[in-house]
């Protein structure tokens, strides 16, 4: 059963087209992350689903009900904002119960729901405090609680962790994941942080210029990015790109200047003709440093230029045929600047993109 269905959604601000004919289906209990650079329309899409923005065209269904022109409160959604948006002059309890009181619920029911939500989020001790007396993490918990008490099927998160410091962010990230596993509600989560997206999502929708580029589970997005933009956006440190052309004489291979990389094992989507200009993308973590024996199908040499130790592993910067080339090695491995290293990778883990359209081949 579909929880949310978005059909041909468009939104224009004057002449600016923010969302362009967008279609999206979200299953019940799914955790969908909308990921994209700022200005890609991800928050706008979330606001449309919430009913905070009037759409120009298209329809939105929540639980099979057309809610396109319903008020936000009637859509059965709860929303958590980046700036928490707590009501500052009310206590935590007041914040949690305000919408319920306004909906004229029975007092027992209100108390039960507030108690339940505060237990789940571990904010029982804070109920009598005002938001000003809470830390960022506690405030965001209360904000989640405010969505929780409304007993809704769909949760919307608008960059909820962006105002927190790095440590709290990781902690709360796990908690949101736990919350999802516990409640099994549909959640839509907007972020520009790819780590959040990868860790939280059942499926990620990568957006750009008001369009969904790729909608898939995190693993597929990471391994099989649909185009060069997605490949660049996902993964840290970012993917390496080498510009060359396809050599299709006997075996399919990638030619960069005079060097040939055999592409045996790479799954081409289409038949690729000879001499087609392409990008070859390979992730730093898929590069293997060869110690004498060449274990990988493709091998080449680079000179170490800069070393960035990051604890568990070390990021090494170098150049290959004029292209910047990064790769990670084990943190314990000794590497010297200026050293010539032999590297290898498996064509199974690379991506080939068309030079012009930048689509995956």
């Amino acid at each position: 059963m579909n929880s949310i269905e978005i059909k041909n959604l468009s939104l224009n601000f004057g002449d600016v087209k923010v969302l362009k004919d967008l279609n999206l289906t979200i299953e019940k209990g799914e955790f969908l992350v909308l990921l994209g650079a700022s200005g890609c329309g991800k928050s706008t899409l979330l606001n449309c689903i919430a009913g905070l923005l009037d759409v120009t065209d298209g329809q939105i269904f929540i639980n099979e009900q057309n809610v396109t022109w319903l008020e936000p409160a009637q859509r059965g959604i709860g929303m958590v904002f980046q700036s928490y948006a707590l009501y500052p002059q009310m206590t935590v309890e007041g914040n949690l119960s305000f919408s319920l009181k306004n909906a004229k619920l029975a007092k027992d029911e209100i108390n039960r729901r507030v108690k339940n939500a505060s237990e789940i989020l571990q904010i029982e001790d804070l109920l009598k405090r005002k938001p000003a007396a809470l830390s960022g993490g506690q405030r965001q918990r209360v904000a989640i609680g405010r969505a929780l008490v409304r007993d809704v099927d769909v949760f919307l998160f608008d960059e909820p962790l962006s105002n927190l410091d790095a440590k709290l962010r990781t902690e709360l990230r796990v908690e949101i994941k736990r919350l999802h596993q516990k409640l099994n509600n549909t959640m839509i989560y907007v972020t520009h942080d790819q780590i959040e997206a990868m860790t939280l999502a059942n499926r990620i929708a990568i957006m750009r210029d008001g369009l969904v580029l790729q909608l898939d589970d995190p693993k597929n997005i990471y391994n099989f990015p649909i185009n060069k933009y997605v490949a660049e956006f996902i993964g840290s440190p970012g993917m390496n790109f080498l510009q060359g052309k396809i050599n299709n004489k006997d075996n399919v291979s990638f030619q960069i200047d005079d060097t040939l990389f055999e592409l045996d094992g790479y799954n081409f989507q289409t038949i690729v003709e000879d001499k087609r200009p392409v990008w070859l993308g390979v992730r730093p973590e898929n590069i293997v440093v060869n110690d004498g024996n060449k274990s990988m199908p493709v091998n080449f040499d680079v000179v170490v230029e800069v070393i960035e130790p990051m604890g568990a592993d070390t990021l090494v910067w170098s150049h290959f045929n004029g292209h910047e080339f990064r790769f990670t090695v084990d943190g314990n491995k000794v590497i010297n600047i200026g050293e010539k290293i032999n590297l290898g990778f498996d064509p199974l883990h690379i991506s080939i993109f068309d030079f012009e359209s930048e689509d995956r081949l």
Partner: protein
Amino acid sequence: MLTKVHPERLFIGSIMLAFALLIMATVGIKPQLLQSLQFLILFVSLLLVIWIGIKAGKFDIITNRLRNRAVGWLIAATFSTALWSFAHKSTQLVFPALKEFRKIWNTFEPFALFATVVFILFALILFIVGSRDSKLERPGFIERSLVHNLSSKIAALPMVLTAVGVFVIATLWTVYHSFTNSRMLPKSEFIGLAQYERLWNSDRWYMSIENLAIYGACSLIFSLVIGFMLAALLDQKTRFENTFRTIFLYPFALSFIVTGLVWQWILNPDYGVQKIVRSLGFDSFVFNPLYNMDIVIYGILAAGLWQGTGFIMCLMLAGLRGIDQEIWKAARIDGIPMWKTYIQIVIPMMRPVFITTLVIIAAGIIKVYDLVVAQTSGGPGISSEVPAKYVYDYMFGAQNLAQGFAASTMMLVSVLIVLIPFTYLEFGRRKNA
């Protein structure tokens, strides 16, 4: 025990004491005795400086920074010596022309002398402290009070003196003279509460207070309500918002006199609203509030509101803009109707703006004067008098200073009665929160 006594603090304290004695002597309380006492204390300060020097024991090379400051104080001492010698007896022998300034100089002389002594003492102590403090981590008491941010302290001094002079001394002077029988010029002949008795027996004063109460209550409520409503309407992503804002704010650019004159014409039966409606054919239409004793104050109120609400609106609009847009979104998701969001969430959040606005409106109410003068001159009869006009008229018109002072003291008292509990509540709240 002696280690607990800070000679540096004693030093600053004794200089302040000497200064206080100097001022008392200048005012005229036992000048001879106090002046010699003052020099005695300054001598004690010198001993304290020597004590500090002995206590410091080992001397180092003075730090550059402090040496410059010490030299600065020496230069200041040179200047004050120059001032002191100006018109002194021995200087007069050389420049007889300076005899002219003898009278000014008499009050001036002890201060210049005092300054010279103190500045030299400061320079001395900075030399000592500077030689010692170079070894300490934290600047000593002397260094902190004489060196740190000194230029800003000096720069603030004239304004501090002005503020104290205007707000404290002038106020006390006014209250003091309200108990006298000063007529055209202030006199110090006490007559007790007679001026207040006269004030509270005057119909005109009662009328003024009544008018102020009506004007104040209405103007407070209406400018807040109308100002907030306009701001809330403009905040709804209104088209031509800038234009509307400018139009609403324009009256604020006019002075009260002009506003009063404009509204006098508008409300005038021969040129204004009544004339227009009558010329439309309603011959028996009557609308002349400024000539009706019962409602004349509302005519003034209309002009006051027209002039002031635009500004209130701007303040409110700024307050509304300061509210996080996500609060609005959250309230919409929570299903709170818009009017309820305004009343229960937004207005409480705008508390600081409301307090600022309240103070501005209240100040405007208390000082309403020119509007009345321009529109009605207090008429018809005394029916549109206000306290500020009463004060002005008695002080400068009727040449009865003490009566005017008594009225202004009453105004001050009533303002304080409102203000003190209000400030107390405000500051008390903040401490508790």
